[in-house]
């Protein structure tokens, strides 16, 4: 087995938690599954599980760090559950391409959104608005997109501003629509928020 196969095997071990766990429990069998002959399987099995695990953890933490930078307010609002949700999500999505961090953050935001909707009552309702705001902002950063529109239950400007200043969340149930738009593809993005008074009246 040559370098190509060895790199493929290592890349899978570094990025796939299930495979890694099986490898730690039975390295010789997993090495053979990966296509290694007896001698190479023996050598692969001799690699320290702690070292592989340490590298895999550093990869995971790097990914989490990048995603947290793109979803900073959601991370701040949700705290520990944000990282825990990412741990579960990380093995289900393989980021790729020059914008892999954006893709990772967008996919994770989708995962987290489903989770928050499924666990109503366990998180403040405004956390979902905040997450959808950050998700929309990432989508709008793609220069190929002309328009991104998102409706929020809460006054998103106040909510975002308060959390960005590290203050207590300013929560006002005041429906609004946020629009990110470019006049043409590849031009600068413009952002505006419109209150929806009739919805507010309906709500009240």
């Amino acid at each position, binding site marked *: 087995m*040559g*370098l*190509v196969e*060895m*790199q*493929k095997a*290592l*890349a*899978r071990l*570094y*990025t796939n938690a299930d495979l890694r766990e099986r490898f730690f429990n039975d390295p010789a069998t997993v090495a053979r599954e990966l296509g290694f002959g007896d001698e*190479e399987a023996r*050598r*692969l099995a*001799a*690699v*320290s599980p702690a*070292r*592989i695990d*340490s*590298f895999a953890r*550093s*990869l995971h933490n*790097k*990914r989490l*760090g990048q995603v947290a930078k793109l979803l900073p307010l959601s991370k701040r609002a949700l705290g520990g559950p944000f990282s825990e949700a990412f741990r579960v999500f990380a093995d289900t999505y*393989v*980021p*790729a*391409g*020059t*914008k*892999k961090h954006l893709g990772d953050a967008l996919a994770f935001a989708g995962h987290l959104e489903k989770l928050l909707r499924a666990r109503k009552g366990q998180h403040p309702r405004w956390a979902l608005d905040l997450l959808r705001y950050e998700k929309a902002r990432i989508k709008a*950063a*793609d*220069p190929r997109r002309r328009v991104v529109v998102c409706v929020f239950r809460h006054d998103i400007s106040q909510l975002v501003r308060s959390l960005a200043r590290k203050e207590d969340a300013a929560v006002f149930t005041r429906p609004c629509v946020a629009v990110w738009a470019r006049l043409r593809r*590849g*031009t*600068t*993005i413009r952002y505006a928020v419109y209150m929806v008074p009739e919805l507010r009246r309906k709500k009240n």
Partner: protein
Amino acid sequence: MAAVAAAVSEGDAFAARLPALGVGLAFREPLRGDVFLRRAEIDFLEITADHYLDAAPEKQRELDLLREHFHLVPHALDLSLGSAEGVDRVYLRKLARLVRRLDPPWWSEHVAFTRAGGVEIGHLAPTEFSREAARVFARNVKEVRAHIDAPLILENITYTLTSPATTWGEAEFLNEVLELTNCGLLLDVTNLHINSVNHGYDFRDFLERLPLDRVVQLHFVGGHRHGDELIDSHSERTPEEVWDIMDGVLARAPVRGAILERDENLPPIEELLAEVGRAREMGRRHGRWA
């Protein structure tokens, strides 16, 4: 900004053919305002090339603005020069476009692989230290040179494990890679310090076995300790051990530039510039730049 000195030597050494840039910062978005306000204290900026591939117009304008005020050196992360299956040609074309646009004195990548078998690892993984792996670099760099004319320098990385097929030491491997590719070396003195501690070797012995005449640029920063291990987190001020290594390298190698590579836990700009100033003085003392 310090003046760009002309090439200093007529010798054959790789570094001597390049201009001396001085000392600068790895550009990070939160530093944007500060680097313009304090640009007289920053000789050049290193930009992460990947941030400007397929970039939004806002990022493109940022790059234009940076270019108007600073010498820029692109630093790529994901070309995966150590990939035995070859480099990603789509990525290479985008990178080549960026490097041509910036027309830098040199650009840099890592002695690492970041993808294999369709899996993007997401970080720099060490290749095995062997003749076969060195030949992979030679093949990949040859392909890259068909697209990018600017001189390429390669950076040593930190690693927690080595591939089971490794047959050489890291220094021998770097030597062979640099020889076969005819690239310069971006010596990350922090990585050297971290590896020497984590793998229990003497950095002086390591330096003795490196082709120091190929050292073009340095990276320096501080990491943190996790148990017995040093972590390359780019999150702390540069420790004294790294300054000592840097002083030794600047005394012997024809270094043309050094970059403070702080990513995390960013302190006020004054703290970063104090480190830049210390490195600049160190290089001046050894006659590396004006």
